[in-house]
């Protein structure tokens, strides 16, 4: 029996959505400040408009949805799903006003791509974009990686109990520390320490590479934010190919691999439990799957003799595979080169890497390492059971922060989510082929969208059919939220119509 949500429920959802949009508005202060410092008056006005739109929305929500009820689990899921859509619609105002987008859908696409740390872009003439807009784009990936909700948790939500449903609705379900607010603080600490260490290092490399101190700083900051969040945006249309630098590639790989690791793993390793990195199911799974992806990609590259030089092969192969597997989306080759130079086998290797993705409770997307590991262990359990005498009690163990016994419901949940990802990859591919794109290309970009990777082989472009843009946008959204929020929102809408 579906219960129709009461006015009180809608108020809770409205209030918390409004608070999150308020947070997005406050975030716009950073690009606004950038515009003022850089004397970019047009963008400054655009950001004032955008910021006020967000603040007005949030204030209206606070006025119209006044309630002292704490959000429940369902509320949390619905708010997570709904607020990402609302943030995409309203946060795109400065994008749209910049004049770099062909339509409002294009602007929303880039917003969603930023928040979900995907990295696919529809922005036109990126090489002539204002510093303010570039600041907004890259900040979006950083904030989106942290989770809009973690931001709201840290700053806006007062009590502890109401916060947890929102946090979980958003797709991170690790408790680093007993109190959810303290967990949010720990996540921020890890991110900010990496920011403090990573940005100066990138800055040094940029200046050594021949960039001016000012441009070098901006690029270092933006590239750091896009790398750590595994977003994959870059300030120039050439992406990380622009830098032509081995040290830069190395630094960004290190940062984005770190960014793809589970925050709980960071916390364990940072607080003295360094052995966790060897025993954790996700790092083990990641190592195995990236080795397989590298195997397939290398086979493809060698078959076609793409890179005649060992070092060139290694640099190009490893960077693209790592970028795909961590679902970052940085590329040191042209998008079309995947199709025209690398060929279908190497593309398949990258596609597999993207599909599997990074770790849970990180900024990465895809199936997630923990599910790959669990599904594999589930197979082991099944095989062992089949081979053991009927009454034997078969136990399979797995390690994630502590050693646990594998139980079937855990495997079942993991497999369900994997199936959901496969479904959105398939849907994106189907629609791509329907729109006339070849299968390998449609598959590549569809998986990139659903896994929030951001590598493109050329399908994603302003000239792409609006239907495909919409499908990718929803794929990015569903993939980032790991489906539960999406189902909750759908269920809520249905119950409003059909419930009693």
């Amino acid at each position, binding site marked *: 029996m579906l219960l129709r949500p009461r006015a009180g429920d809608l108020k809770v959802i409205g209030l918390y959505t409004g608070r999150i949009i308020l947070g997005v508005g406050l975030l716009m202060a950073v690009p606004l400040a950038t515009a003022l410092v850089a004397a970019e008056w047009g963008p400054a006005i655009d950001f004032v408009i955008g910021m006020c739109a967000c603040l007005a929305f949030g204030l209206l929500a606070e006025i119209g949805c006044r309630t002292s009820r704490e959000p429940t689990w369902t509320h949390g899921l619905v708010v997570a799903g709904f607020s990402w859509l609302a943030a995409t619609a309203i946060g795109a105002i400065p994008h749209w006003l910049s004049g770099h987008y062909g339509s409002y859908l294009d602007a929303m696409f880039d917003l969603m791509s930023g928040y979900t740390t995907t990295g696919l872009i529809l922005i036109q003439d990126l090489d002539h974009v204002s510093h303010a807009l570039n600041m907004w784009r890259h900040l979006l990936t950083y904030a989106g990686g942290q989770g809009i909700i973690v931001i709201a948790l840290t700053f806006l939500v007062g009590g502890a109990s109401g916060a947890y449903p929102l946090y979980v609705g958003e797709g991170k379900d690790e408790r680093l520390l007993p109190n959810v607010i303290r967990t949010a603080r720990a996540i921020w600490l890890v991110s900010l320490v990496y920011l403090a260490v990573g940005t100066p290092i990138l800055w040094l490399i940029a200046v050594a590479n021949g960039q001016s101190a000012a441009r070098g700083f901006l690029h270092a900051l933006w590239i750091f934010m896009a790398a750590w969040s595994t977003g994959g945006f870059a300030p120039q249309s050439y992406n990380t190919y622009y830098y032509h630098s081995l040290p830069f590639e190395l630094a960004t*790989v290190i940062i984005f691999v770190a960014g793809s690791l589970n925050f709980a793993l960071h916390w364990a390793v940072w*607080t*003295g439990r360094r052995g966790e990195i060897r025993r954790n199911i996700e790092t083990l799974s990641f190592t195995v799957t*990236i080795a397989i992806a590298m195997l397939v990609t290398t086979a493809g590259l060698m078959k076609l003799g793409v890179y005649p030089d060992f070092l060139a*092969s290694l640099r190009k*192969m490893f960077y693209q595979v790592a970028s795909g597997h961590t679902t970052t989306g940085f590329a040191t080759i042209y998008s079309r080169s995947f199709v025209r130079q690398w060929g279908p086998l190497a593309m398949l290797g990258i596609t597999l890497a993207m599909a599997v993705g990074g770790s849970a409770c990180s900024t990465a997307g895809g199936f997630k390492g923990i599910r790959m590991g669990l599904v594999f262990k589930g197979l082991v359990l099944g095989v062992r059971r089949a081979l053991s005498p009927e009454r034997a009690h078969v136990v399979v163990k797995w390690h994630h*922060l502590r050693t646990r016994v594998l139980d079937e419901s855990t495997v079942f949940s993991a497999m369900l989510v994997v199936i959901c990802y496969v479904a959105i990859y398939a849907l994106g591919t189907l629609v791509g082929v329907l729109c006339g794109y070849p299968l390998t290309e449609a598959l590549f970009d569809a998986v990139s969208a659903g896994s929030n990777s951001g590598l493109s082989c050329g399908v994603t472009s302003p000239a792409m059919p609006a239907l495909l843009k919409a499908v990718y946008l929803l794929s990015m959204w569903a993939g980032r939220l790991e489906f539960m929020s999406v189902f909750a929102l759908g269920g809520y809408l249905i119950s409003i119509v059909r419930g009693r």
Partner: protein
Amino acid sequence: MNGNGDYLDFRRWRNIASYLAGIGVEILFTLLLAGIGMLILAGFWIVGG
């Protein structure tokens, strides 16, 4: 999983050292993956001739 609130205090040198050591371990992880890539590539290179 828990950390004592202690580690959240980023102003203590001991904690900072611990964070940096953690970063060091994570860097090694990336280098390990690059090493695996190198081995795979070398394998193909040798077999391919």
